[in-house]
């Protein structure tokens, strides 16, 4: 069954675990700048914007690490059912 990354920015709490996980997975060290996913935190608005860089390889490790449900790995059929 095809599995895809589902993004729900409204659930993001801004913890950046996704970006740290991406960096350790693909670059072998922890950092926030240079990961293939980044979270722009607008602190005064309490909002978070999730951006994937063109270098993202779609490994979905970020979603597996996301504690808030903003990033999830879902079955494509399941997603279609939910939306349909």
């Amino acid at each position, binding site marked *: 069954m095809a599995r895809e990354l589902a993004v729900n920015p*409204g*659930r993001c*709490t*801004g*913890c*950046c*675990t996704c970006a*740290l*996980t991406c*960096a*350790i997975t693909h*670059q*072998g*060290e*922890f*950092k*926030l*700048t*240079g990961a293939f996913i980044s979270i*722009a*935190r*607008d*602190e*005064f*608005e*309490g909002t978070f914007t999730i951006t994937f860089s063109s270098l993202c390889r779609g490994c979905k490790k970020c979603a597996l*690490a996301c*504690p*808030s449900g903003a990033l999830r790995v879902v079955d494509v059929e399941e997603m279609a059912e939910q939306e349909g």
Partner: protein
Amino acid sequence: MYGYSGKILDIDLTAGRMKERPVEQDWAREYLSGLGFNARLLYEEIPAGADPLGPENILVFNVGVLVGTTVPTASRTEASALSPATGLFGTANSGNFWGSELKFAGFDGVVIRGKAAAPVYVWICDGQATILPADHLWGRDAWETVRRIRRELGDGAIQVAAIGQAGENLVRFASVENGPFDAWARTGLGAVMGSKNLKAVAVRGRGAVRVAHRKEFLQAVDDTRKAIFSSPFYGPFSRFGTMLATLPYQEFGALPGRNYRLGAIENWVETRSRKVLPRYSNRGVACVACPIACAHWVEIKEGPYAGLRLKDMEVTPVIGFGAGCDINNLPAVAMVTETCQRLGLDMVSAAAVVAFAMELYEKGLIGEKDLGFPLNWGDERATISLLDMIAHRRGLGDVLAEGVRKAAEHFPGASKYAVEVKGLECFLLDPRARWSTWTLGYITSVRGGDHLRTRNPVENLRYNENPVPYLTEKFGFSEEMYERLDMPDELKKEIFDPVTRDVNIPKMSRWAEDLIAVYNALGMCIRPPVLHTVGPTLFARLYASLTGIDITPAEVIRAGERIWNLQKLFNLRHGEKPGDADYPSRFYEEPVRAGPAAGRRLDREKVREVLREYYLARGWDPDTGLPGAAKLAELNLQSYTHQRS
């Protein structure tokens, strides 16, 4: 080095010079990082007799070594200095993103010494540091300072530690704000920054944290995450944050209502408890790497405070201002919270000071002519006006800016209304109504009347029972929870009753203090789902695999004990006396007036007995509380002394 950045930045504001000092491997193993490094630096550098607001004081920030990684809740940085509030070890811990940014900028910590000739701020970016003028920021509040620094340096991701007007004006309970909504709040560190003419420390880093043994580390991180998720507190804490405590405190009658007179408050549940939180907030905001996101984004959509938006609807301001000053609705408490965040005031002490002033007003010791306005219980507008007077040291605000202990000296007969220990206001939970490890911590804590350094990791808020009065508190969890608690078996047998599992309070206090010292040294958060489940075994695995420095669980907790003892030695050198470990007279002499605990007060003899038990558990002299030579040798502190030098 792995895990560590390997460097501490040392800035002399008098000379306008800075240097880097390496993190020594021996230091790392014995003091870990964070609070541990701060304790060592303060002990070595601040002589007896130093003025907390003089250039001889140093202000130190050290980040926990686990920060910058995916270790859940590893976000925390400890800030320390000789405290203007207590004259003792001043220290506070804060999360958010400042610490991770400092590590990514290439430093584990920053030491600030001396005094700048004119207002400045420090800008640390990718291994470089610059001292910049701050005349244009002086006089501005902390929110505005954060905004302006980000704008003028052209990067919204810059993390800013800043003081508001309270710090500039040397208010003894001024905070260092960590971004707009978080803070190193307790013990008046903002005044130390103000005394140095230092408005802010801004940081930005694009570097990385390296890992010694990646596979082992990621496995340890995964196990830590699973442990935290397994805690029964995890779900409720994610949903309600610290507001969870608002219901049991009312149930126990342990609120500090109207300056510790009313233990329970009418309409509390409907107006100020977690039950009303969802009306104003429906989502959490996290510190870096935190899966709990206990802080809440708050939006007030109607009423006099419509339009107010901020992070935090936390138990501290809700109980402090909501109960202590009896401000009877959450939007008004949120408005007062914003005021404290902007002015840069420690909300625990600020609430205690306002409640103290409200009681003086009620008793007629101060009047409208002294203030320019009435100061009745529950009046949030008057509260905000008074906080503004304090932050700017205007009129009576100048007296109150000294904190309740010193302010009480100005009003004959007022000292009995001052609720503080060692000069630090304790303002959250009433020990007369709930006697526990937590409340014993008010008098054992090295930073004075405080509730955050002595917390039973298995505190149970469903019960309020002391099976042996003063000596034990009820455990009340499952046997599985007992088995899983990460504590050496022989110690478990000493702390927990073999049959009932009741918790020995003085012995648990010692364990809790050492454990929390480790948390504050490594940079993890003491929220219950974490404190509950993560102990020396996981810490040792995380630390060793991240840094490559082998350490055993026993050595980890020993480091915590060493850090606690060194803070105590610092305090003794700076004049702490055995009798200072005592509650304010109100708790002995006046019974709680209302609620389920009405009529209760503390028994001085019983408190002394339990304190003696605590000193014995610490290996200190049971009468004086002085750490003896054998204990210091055991901790490799034999060359350290509590003598004034």
